[in-house]
């Protein structure tokens, strides 16, 4: 008969460089923590899992919480019996938020294109510098294939 060896280890959660959570676990009630950093804590004499709360982890936590809330409402997992209008409103939410984000991005790009002022002086200066550079390089032996003028602004 195989016997299961009991291991003890510690879990430390670090937020803003402070340890906010520490607990002892055994392999009777273990669970896998993503983003964890496995190490051996020599002071405690046992394996320790460090979870440093990076921005990525914060985002993932926030997104998964929202995702779970959406799933609960859409698939009615808790039998909350919400009014039908709110359930109708909830299920297209992820697609709606993506479309809104796309619209916002498009509008921002369009607005910045429309209000980006031409800089005539800078354009002329740049053209002159390009011409100068081309002549300089030609003297040094570089062959320039494309003679298309550059339009700026």
């Amino acid at each position, binding site marked *: 008969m195989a016997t299961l060896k009991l291991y003890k280890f510690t879990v430390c959660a670090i937020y803003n460089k402070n340890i906010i959570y520490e607990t002892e676990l055994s392999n009777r009630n273990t669970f896998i923590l993503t983003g964890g950093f496995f190490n051996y804590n020599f002071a405690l004499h046992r394996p320790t899992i460090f979870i440093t709360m990076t921005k990525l982890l914060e985002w993932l936590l926030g997104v998964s919480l929202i995702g779970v809330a959406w799933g609960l409402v859409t698939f009615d997992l808790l039998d909350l019996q919400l009014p039908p209008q709110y359930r109708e409103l909830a299920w297209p939410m992820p697609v709606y938020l993506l479309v809104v984000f796309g619209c916002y991005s*498009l509008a921002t790009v369009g607005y910045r294109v429309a209000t980006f002022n031409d*800089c005539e002086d800078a354009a002329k200066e740049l053209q002159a510098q390009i011409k100068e550079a081309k002549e300089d390089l030609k003297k040094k032996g570089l062959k320039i294939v494309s003679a298309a003028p550059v339009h700026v602004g």
Partner: protein
Amino acid sequence: SEIDVEATGADQAVGFGLVGFSLSLFTYYTIWVIVLPFVDSDHVIHSYFLPREYSVILPGVAALILLLFVGTFIGVVTWKNRKPKKVD
């Protein structure tokens, strides 16, 4: 010092066109997804909107078509820039 001139006509037309297009798309889509569930089903406004399932299917199809375009573009550019392997 540099004198800034207002953006040229074409730039303004394209830019404000994009802004107008995204504003109208946002308005239509918001009414479709958020406002319509709270409107009585016999109101005339429902005739201007497709059934609710299409509010998820159409953006999905649009995203797929966009991906197709991007993939095709990358494929064409990669194909054009391929260099024959050297044979020693």
